[in-house]
Structure formats: structure tokens, C-alpha cells
């Protein structure tokens, strides 16, 4: 075994054994993250069915996108889904966290219950909500009928106009608890004397919320928004399970589109791997842009302090 004797004799305070400690991580990273990631840059410039040699085609995959109506549809849906979930899954959890933070006898119970969906897999969530949305016997329509709103009963996932909102509601159901807890942790980091001071100065609840809570939660909010943006851009599981991108591509997003192209459920013909990887590059660039912007904003806000 390597011991500390070696570096000590060298007088430098180095522990080269550290390389052994990190070697497994580095190897795993290179093989299962780094290499596939770098390779996707090259493969996005090729035309390839997955067998034989990839044929280099330059930027053709990216110009193909410009003329591909399905790509534009998927991109638009991705943006809609991301925008809606980011706004709703930031504002509602924040309000809930502020409310819960006021202290309630049953606070722990509320918190526990609201968080539960966050520990459930997206497959379970998707299947469960498919049954809830089912037009004839699903519990949503069932309830609407029983309370006399039967006219609103609807094929929620089968109608191109309601499918995206229906999916957004499911995403909201699953995510509110997690982001609420992140905000709660942030709220408890705020110095209570700020609020006391503000009360002495005569500030009301609303003023305190906008002038203390919101600014003090800027960093946490930035993280929540970033996580929401990335989750939105890369969204796949829920939509794949619940609608597969349908009906008629009404809920197709970049993730489901590229998956279909590569692994066959929507392409029908030969897998278009090069093109699919080019689309995955678009997802990557969107996530990267969100991260860079968030880091910039976060740096600026910390500078201000």
C-alpha cells in the first residue's frame, strides 16, 4: 500500500495517492460520460443508420432541421412545456413555502404529503395519470360528471388542444413538493431580524414578501429556475409514457422525437442516428445556455452583495 511517507520526503505537501483515490471516478466518467458526449459532436455531423460506417455530411443534419416541420413542432412544444412548467413550478412552490413557513400545527404533515409525488418514478406517475385522464372511466371525468360538470368531461390526452396542458398539470403535481422544500430550506436561511426590523418600520406582509423574501431568495430561485429549465428542455419520461408524443405529434417534444428517430417507434424506416444526435445537440445547447445565463446572473447578484 502506498503510504504518506513518499510525499513527505519530497517536502512538497502532495499526496499523489490521491490519483488512486480518484482513478475509478475518472475512468467511469471518461468511458460512460466523456467519450459518448464528445463522440456525439462528431456523429451529429454524419448520416448513419447505426450499421456500417458513419458518412460525414458536415452540417447537413442541422440544415435538414430547418425544413423539418416535425422538428419545429417538437421545438415549439418543448419551449411551451418548459416555459409553463418553469413559471408554475417556481411561483407556486415559492408561495406554498412562504405559507408553510408561517408555522402550522400540521405543518409537518402538509409538507410530507405535498412532497410524496417527488419520490415516485415518472413511469408510475405517467401510468397513474393516464388512468385518471382516461375519457370513459378515468377519475377526473368521473368526478366532473358527479359534480354536475359532465359537459367538461373530455379526452384530455386525446385532444391536441388539451394534451400539453394536461401533461403540464402532471409535471406540476410531481414537482411542486420538491421545489417547495428547496424554497423552505432557503427561507430558513433568512435572518428573522430582517422581518422584525421591517415590522418595526411598519412594513406589511406584502412589502416584506417583495422586499425581503424575494431578494433574499434570489440565489435559491436561480437554482430552482435553472433546474426547471433543464428538466423542461430534456423532458422525456413523462411524455413518452403518457402520450408517446401524440396525438398526431401534438405533444411531441425534442426528447421523444429524437428517441423515436433513433430507436424506432415513430420513424418507421431506417433509424436516422446522425439526425437524432443532431437534435440531441440542440437539447444540450439549450441546457448549456440556461446554465451559463444562470451562472452569470448568480455571479452578478453575489457581486452586488
Amino acid at each position, binding site marked *: 500500500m502506498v503510504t*504518506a511517507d513518499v510525499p513527505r520526503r519530497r517536502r512538497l505537501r502532495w499526496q499523489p*495517492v490521491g490519483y488512486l483515490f*480518484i482513478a*475509478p471516478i475518472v475512468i467511469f466518467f471518461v468511458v460512460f460520460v466523456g467519450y459518448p458526449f464528445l463522440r456525439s459532436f462528431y456523429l451529429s455531423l454524419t448520416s448513419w443508420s447505426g450499421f456500417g460506417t458513419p458518412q460525414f455530411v458536415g452540417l447537413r443534419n442541422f440544415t435538414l432541421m430547418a425544413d423539418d416541420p416535425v422538428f419545429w413542432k417538437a421545438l415549439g412544444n418543448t419551449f411551451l412545456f418548459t416555459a409553463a412548467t418553469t413559471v408554475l413550478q417556481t411561483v407556486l412552490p415559492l408561495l*406554498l413555502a412562504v405559507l408553510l413557513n408561517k408555522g*402550522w400545527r400540521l405543518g409537518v404533515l402538509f409538507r410530507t404529503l405535498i412532497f410524496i409525488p417527488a419520490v415516485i418514478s415518472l413511469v408510475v406517475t405517467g401510468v397513474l395519470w393516464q388512468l385518471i385522464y382516461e375519457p370513459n372511466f378515468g377519475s377526473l371525468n368521473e368526478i366532473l360528471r358527479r359534480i354536475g360538470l359532465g359537459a367538461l368531461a373530455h379526452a384530455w390526452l386525446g385532444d391536441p388542444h388539451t394534451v400539453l396542458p394536461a401533461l403540464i398539470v402532471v409535471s406540476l*403535481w410531481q414537482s*411542486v413538493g420538491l421545489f417547495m422544500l428547496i424554497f423552505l430550506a432557503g427561507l430558513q436561511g433568512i435572518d428573522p431580524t430582517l422581518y422584525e426590523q421591517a415590522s418595526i418600520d411598519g412594513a406589511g406582509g406584502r412589502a416584506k414578501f417583495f422586499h425581503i423574501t424575494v431578494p433574499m431568495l434570489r440565489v435559491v430561485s436561480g437554482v430552482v429556475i435553472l433546474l426547471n429549465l433543464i428538466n423542461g428542455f*430534456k423532458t422525456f419520461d413523462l411524455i413518452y409514457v403518457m402520450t408517446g408524443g401524440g396525438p398526431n405529434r401534438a405533444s411531441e417534444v425534442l426528447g421523444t422525437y429524437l*428517441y423515436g428517430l433513433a430507436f424506432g417507434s415513430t420513424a418507421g424506416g431506417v433509424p436516422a442516428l446522425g439526425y437524432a444526435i443532431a437534435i440531441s445537440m440542440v437539447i444540450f445547447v439549450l441546457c448549456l445556455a440556461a446554465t451559463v445565463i444562470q451562472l452569470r446572473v448568480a455571479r452578478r447578484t453575489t457581486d452586488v452583495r
Partner: protein
Amino acid sequence: MSADAPATLRRPPEVRSEPAPPPRARHAVTRSAGYVTLIVVSAATVFPFLWMLATSIRPSNTVFGGPLIPRSVTGDAYRRAWTQLDYPSHLWNSIYVTVATVVIVLALSTLGGYAFAKLQFPGKQVIYVILLSTLMLPLTAIIIPLFLEMRALNLLNTRQGLILVYVGGALPFAMFLMRAFFETLPDELIQAARVDGAGEFRIFARIMLPLAAPGVATVVIFQFLSTWNEFLLAQTFLSAPEYLPLQPVLYGVVGQHSTDWPLLTAALTMSVLPIIAVYVRMQRRFVAGMTLGAVKD
């Protein structure tokens, strides 16, 4: 000795709900409104689970059009899900893949996290930044090249291959968490042990690792949850039914048994119960694991 670590990290974000000072009379109305809001939100959150449970224990002939709360109860759907879906073998696959992934991730992330926190060696910062640079890389962005690589390595359709991919994907974040925990431990412990002639690995395993127990628990729970719930990779890399863990099976049963709702909901309930049970018992660790990465800096 370890008590001088910053309190925030030694005890990762926990959420308190202390009762506030008694509300003044003029706040009574807003307080009731707050209560109602919380009750409505909680009820809306829980309703799908209750409905799932209720459907799973109904007699099959009362599922469609029967009363919302079942009048009689049967465990028949659970029995059918257990046998017809070959549930035990998929459950075993889930357990096998999850436990193996958690164990490997834990072993390697503690080693690496410790090195990045406490050992000095040239190039450390650069390697660290590279490892973390892909933290936000979405899986959908590399799933195709990963698939091709697995095919080239003959690892497609093996549980071992799936475990390796899980480990690779999970390590950077787990290492990042463990590093945060190790950084809160005092250097003096290490220096004293070095003076006593202990080797670096021994210092790590015997002295530092036990002190990082809260971090270990956080990584275990976080990893357990994310591996147990993973769908995309399992669905893509495994095709032989005998290797499938629960998530792809649950996805598949909708197509095969689309009208047998008691069976579907029973299968869902069985897959969810272990997770919810662990969550309710170990809530604080769960919450810490899921929020720490986000709240930290």
C-alpha cells in the same frame, strides 16, 4: 473535535415547522385561508394515490361505473399482478441493479470526494472542474452514443452493463456531495494521524469515513431513489424480459392489460410502497439528499 464544522453542512438542510407565535385576531381570516389552501393542495396531491389504492382493491366488476369508494375489498388484483406479471423476478432485478449501483457509487464517490476535499495533488482542480462540467448534461443528449458504445462493448441487454452506465452517470454528483461533507471535517485529524504514521487509505477508511456518515446516508438514499426510479436507460438497453427491472415493466403493462385497472394499480402500488415507506421513515435524509445539491452554493 469535529464540532467546529459549520452547522449548515453538518446538518444538511432540514425543514422545521415550528409553530409561529399565536396569531392576532385580525390575522384569523388570513390564517384560515392559509389552512384551507394547505388542505386543498395536500388533498389534491394525495388524491391520485388514494384513488390508485382504492382501484387496486376493488373487485374487478365494480371498477367501471362503481362507487368511488369501494364497498367490498379484495386482494385479488395483487395476487394476479404478482403471478401474471412475473413480478417477483422484476422486483429482484430492480433490487439487484439498485443495490449494486448504490454500493459501487458509494464506494467510489467517498474515495474520490475525500481526495478532492482533503488530498493535494497536481491537476486536482482541473480534473474536478471537468468532472462537474457535465453535471447539467441531460441524459437524452448522450443516450444514442451510449447505446452504440454499449453495443460495441457487448454490454447491451445485460444488467451488469446497465449498472456500469448508472454508476458512470451518478458518480460526479455523488462525489460532489461527498466532497462537501468531507470539507467540513477538520484537517487536524488527518495531520495527527499522519504524524502517527497512518497511511492515507487508512486515514480515509478508519478516521474520516465514519465521520462522514450523514453524507453517506444522503448519497445512499438519493442514489437508491434515482436508480430505483430510472426508466429511460433500462427501457433502451434491456430487451430480454427476464432482465427487466420494474419501471420498464410497469410501462409495458399498460399496453398489455389496459383494461384491467385493478391489476395495473396493484402493480403500481407494489412498486411505490417500499419507496414511500422508506421516505416516511427517513424523511429528513431524503429531503437533505434531494435539496442539498440544489441549495449548496
